[in-house]
């Protein structure tokens, strides 16, 4: 299993997942998409949200908290990619190395999904660990900046209480 192969599998799964969400919720606009994994970077799934689905919460912290998003049907879409991810983990005795490399692959897949228009350009997207250690926190923070730009990165940090609003 190569990282390129894994990236392609993840990208394909993202496409299918977006299709699934839009099929289930026609006429809604996706505003968030996240790849869900764990600290070991072995598991893989997704969660998505739409402006309509979030309703009043769209302006709050839930917008940036994928574990609270409701749209996540059809997780089996990610089974093949998940198996590939686990295989990659098993083949690398250096756990931290695997975590770092695999996380980059997930970021790359989301970046491609955005670039090709599968994910709306203005949507919030990132890979996350569902119960992150400090290292995964850092990786996620960097990924958010890369995938969403500094304005969204800042907005998210304010929304979840990491940073204070800028009152200037």
């Amino acid at each position, binding site marked *: 299993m190569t990282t390129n192969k894994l990236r392609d599998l993840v990208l394909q799964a993202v496409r299918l997942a977006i299709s699934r969400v839009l099929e289930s919720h026609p006429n809604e606009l996706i505003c968030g998409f996240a790849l*869900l*994994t*764990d*600290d*070991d970077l*072995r*598991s*893989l*799934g*997704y*969660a998505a949200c739409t402006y309509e689905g979030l309703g009043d919460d769209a302006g709050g*912290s839930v917008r940036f*908290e994928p*574990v*609270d998003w*409701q749209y*996540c049907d059809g*997780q*089996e879409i*990610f*089974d093949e990619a*998940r198996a590939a991810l686990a295989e990659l983990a098993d083949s690398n005795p*250096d*756990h*931290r190395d695997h975590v770092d490399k695999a996380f980059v692959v997930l970021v790359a897949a989301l970046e491609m999904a955005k670039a090709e228009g599968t994910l709306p350009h203005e949507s919030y997207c990132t890979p*996350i660990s*569902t*119960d*992150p*250690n*400090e290292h995964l*926190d850092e990786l996620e923070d960097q990924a958010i900046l890369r995938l969403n730009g500094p304005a969204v990165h800042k907005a998210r940090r304010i929304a*979840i*209480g*990491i940073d204070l609003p800028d009152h200037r």
Partner: protein
Amino acid sequence: MLARLIATVAALLLACASPQAQAHVRAPERVSVSFVDLARADALENTPPAKSETNPKTAPPARATSENLASGKNAALSHWRVCKNWSPEPKCTSTFGVTGYQKEAGNLYQAVARFYRPGTGRFLSQDPWEGDVKNPASLNPYIYGYGNPGSFIDPDGRCPIPSLCAYGFARNDEERLGALRSFANSDPTTGRVVGVGARLAGPVIAANTARLAIEGDPAARTRVSEFVGAAGEFIKQRLTTLATQGAAELVRQDVVTLGTGIGESYAEAETAGDRGDYVGQGMAGFDTAAQVAAAVPAAGAPVLLRMGRGNVARVQVPGTKPTQLAEAPDGSVGVRFYDVDGEAGIGQIEHPLAQPSRHGDFHGPWREVPDDNFSWKAYLERESGSTAPAGMPDPHAHHVLQKRGRPGVQRDLVLEGQDLLQRRAGIDPVYGLENLVWAPNRVAGQHSTETLRRVVGKVRELDSANATPQDFLKALEVLGKEAADRR
């Protein structure tokens, strides 16, 4: 005064003598606080001695003299008076106390599982470990280090262990540094500096004790052994230097080099030393303790030694009278105070043998801890002997009460729940198998804030109902099963 100061510094140097200790000081990413401390060495050296308030309760007592000692009218400090009435302004700004804990809230020190109150030798809350009936001192849920801080430290507020064990078993540089700080200079009971006898005899005592605790961990055994070897050689060197070059210069250099590393305790000792009212206390042992004990009063200050019962008769301090306090019920506590004033009751171990509210399923502080290569999957497989159930979609090692939670509101909830699990049920919420199960990761609601609220709510409910540890365990089991079955 100088002799006592030398004693203190020698103790500190002893602890910092090992190759490992040197390595820690050089490791910038791990010991940045230490570097800050060391950077303040000049400031410390140039700062004039702190002046105490004029309030009679905090003002320093009369200077100790040999006449006082000989007459039995001890105008200097007794152990008790030191605790109660005298707290000089520390000159050192280090936030690390004598125990190796870091000051956090007010004058409290964060001891991981609990808060520690300096100067009292007590934690603010009870030990999650219920103790061992064969060691009555361990049954006191509040006391620090079995009431024997000369030989024991408590790295995370859960279980006292011999100082050298703490070093050998430390999981990272930060913990090793904490152990060294504590070992170098610890007397949490008084908040003052431990006598030199403790520090010189310490390695021998602790190494013997350590042997019992390091079985099964060859790496720890090696580390302990190296440390003891280095410390022994170091003591020899320092004592030789002391004898040949004189004390003043040695002390001056040592203060500049290392003085700040041990934080307030050293600063207090220095202040006390300046006043000549230093009270030495140590876990005395063997002939070294006798020599030290004899040296301290000769310099004009009282001495209070703590020692094994067997040594009381052997150690004779001129002009003093040994007092052996009450025996423990089963006679197993071999540590008592030896009080030059003969004031019975000083430092007696308060020891409730029955603490019905205490319980626990404590794992001990030295479980394997994540390093860069730590994998929760591997950990759960190894510790539980199980693998992810076949057919479970997207399995992962799942913390029923999340181990950290997502940034934001989840973090506060997790901390609250973890505190309750730890305090009320003695469950280690991060590494304890009671809180770990195989469960699908990607299913809706598995890690949601709502689910977390429910878990923490359940723990709160049990806490309010004064539930037993078994109730907590049962609740975790039920919640764990829910998580495993969630689709």
